[in-house]
């Protein structure tokens, strides 16, 4: 079998085509938003938020009798409410922020599993929520990913300078009289929408990898935010494609294959990146 055939064969399936488009779109959106998640040290928040939407998704699943297409809206609603809720709770001083997030996230996650487990033969659907089902993306879901992913990217672009200043120097943002509280909540909401958009591709349990790993890899390769976002997006999109081919030919779960590909890229950059890589530093010292 020639290389061309090897590459084209999976594309003869419509579900593979949709899966590839979904993986690329989700990868790009996650990577761009993920740049801020990495720079602001919000990895744990992102992981927690992804897990916290499970009860909402489960409720939608029960209400809709297992129908998939409406789940996006349940995920979106739960994610936005949970993001703003976690944001508000973490401002209270009684408990440390990461402790508060940990308590809520584990509780909500358990609630989600409890809800889904009331359905007999729930295991398959649960595993799709947890680890994604990119090959099951319907044409309608693909449109939702495209529209909402596009909105996220547009907002990030429109408020580029505000988010940059807020992330680098919150006191500067305040002295420039930027609406700091509003912008912080907007960023939380963007992360929430990103998570809803990505739910079907990677699932809640692997979500944090899409948010953090490509952006972290890019941060080892560049020293400007715009190029960090672009490299992260390219890495994530590439990982989506490579991951799906690996999944197709080796029979590995698709979400796991995509995440493992991003992880491999990260390890390569961690070892070999010019200036920032481990080997470079070794050679220098």
């Amino acid at each position, binding site marked *: 079998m020639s290389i061309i055939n090897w590459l084209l064969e999976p594309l003869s399936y419509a579900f593979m085509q949709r899966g590839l488009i979904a993986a690329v779109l989700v990868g790009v959106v996650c990577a761009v938003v993920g740049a801020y998640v990495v*720079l602001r040290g919000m990895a744990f928040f992102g992981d927690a938020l992804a897990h916290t939407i499970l009860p909402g998704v489960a409720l939608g699943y029960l209400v809709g009798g297992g129908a998939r297409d409406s789940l996006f809206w349940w995920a979106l609603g739960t994610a936005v409410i949970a993001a703003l809720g976690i944001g508000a709770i973490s401002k209270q001083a009684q408990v440390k922020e990461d402790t508060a997030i940990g308590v809520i996230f584990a509780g909500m996650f358990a609630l989600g599993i409890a809800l889904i487990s009331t359905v007999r033969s729930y295991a398959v659907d649960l595993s799709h929520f947890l680890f994604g089902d990119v090959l099951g993306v319907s044409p309608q879901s693909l449109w939702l990913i495209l529209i909402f992913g596009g909105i996220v990217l547009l907002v990030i672009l*429109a408020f580029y*300078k*505000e988010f*940059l*200043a807020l*992330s*680098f*120097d919150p*006191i*500067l943002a*305040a*002295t*420039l*009289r*930027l*609406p700091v509280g509003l912008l912080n909540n907007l960023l939380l909401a963007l992360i929430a929408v990103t998570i809803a958009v990505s739910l079907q591709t990677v699932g809640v349990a692997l979500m944090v990898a899409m948010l953090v790993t490509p952006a972290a890899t890019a*941060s080892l390769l*560049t*020293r*400007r*935010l715009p190029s*960090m976002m672009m490299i992260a997006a390219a890495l994530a999109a590439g990982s989506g494609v490579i991951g799906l081919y690996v999944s197709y030919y080796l029979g590995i779960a698709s979400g796991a294959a995509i995440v493992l590909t991003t992880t491999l890229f990260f390890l390569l950059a961690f070892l070999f990146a010019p200036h920032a890589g481990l080997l470079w530093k070794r050679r220098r010292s």
Partner: protein
Amino acid sequence: MYPHSRHLDDQPILDVQHLDVRYNGHFALENITFHLHAGERVAVVGPNGAGKSTLFKVVAGVLQPTGGEVAIYGSGPSGHVCIAYVPQRSQVDWSFPVSVADVVMMGRIAKLGLLGWPKKSDWEHVRRALRTVNMEDLAKRQISQLSGGQQQRMFIARALAQEAELMLMDEPLTGLDAPSQDNILSLLDELQRQKVTVMVATHDLEQAAQYFDRIMLLNRQLIGFGGPDEVLQPEKLLRAYGGRLHKTASGESLALDDSCCSGGEEHVHH
């Protein structure tokens, strides 16, 4: 979206009246009253925890006071974008993926307005600000590759790009070598020529006396505010620094070392 309050020229650039700041019932600042006129240069001195940073943050409108009033040209600080807070270098994430020009451009954000992108004139502002601090050739450099003095001058350039009329500098000289300190101090002269009002928090009383018109001696309360001869009096310094004040061998001048007592213990030298 971004407010611009009008400046009343007959008002002082900064007027602070009976300012209180309390954290959990403890006074961080108590009954502070003073005012500054445009173009003044003031050193703010006092021991660690005296409330220097707190005062700056209240004046910048970043922190709400518990009581009292702060007015910039006659109105509250939250309507003004002419106040720049120059952060302590230790408070900054130097691995952040931005260049020197990126950071200086951040000072222009309020002028750009919502959804605005930098125009040619904004880049010209950035270039001019970098030229003033003598860093034009470092515009493209990533901020982690700067020396301490360059880091400090970059933030002064950002305040210039912001067109700040009041600059609050939090310990800009701390940890710099002597030539870098001289660079910053000569920049202060340039700022004065441009009629920028400057408040500088510092540990170095000798520098404060040598380079500043007026000295503000602070330890939660305002202990002294005036010319160096008037403020650096032994009894005032003792009130500010307590037992941490010690006389030099000659007995003539006073030496202070408030960084020696990080554990809170007091070193009394007789």
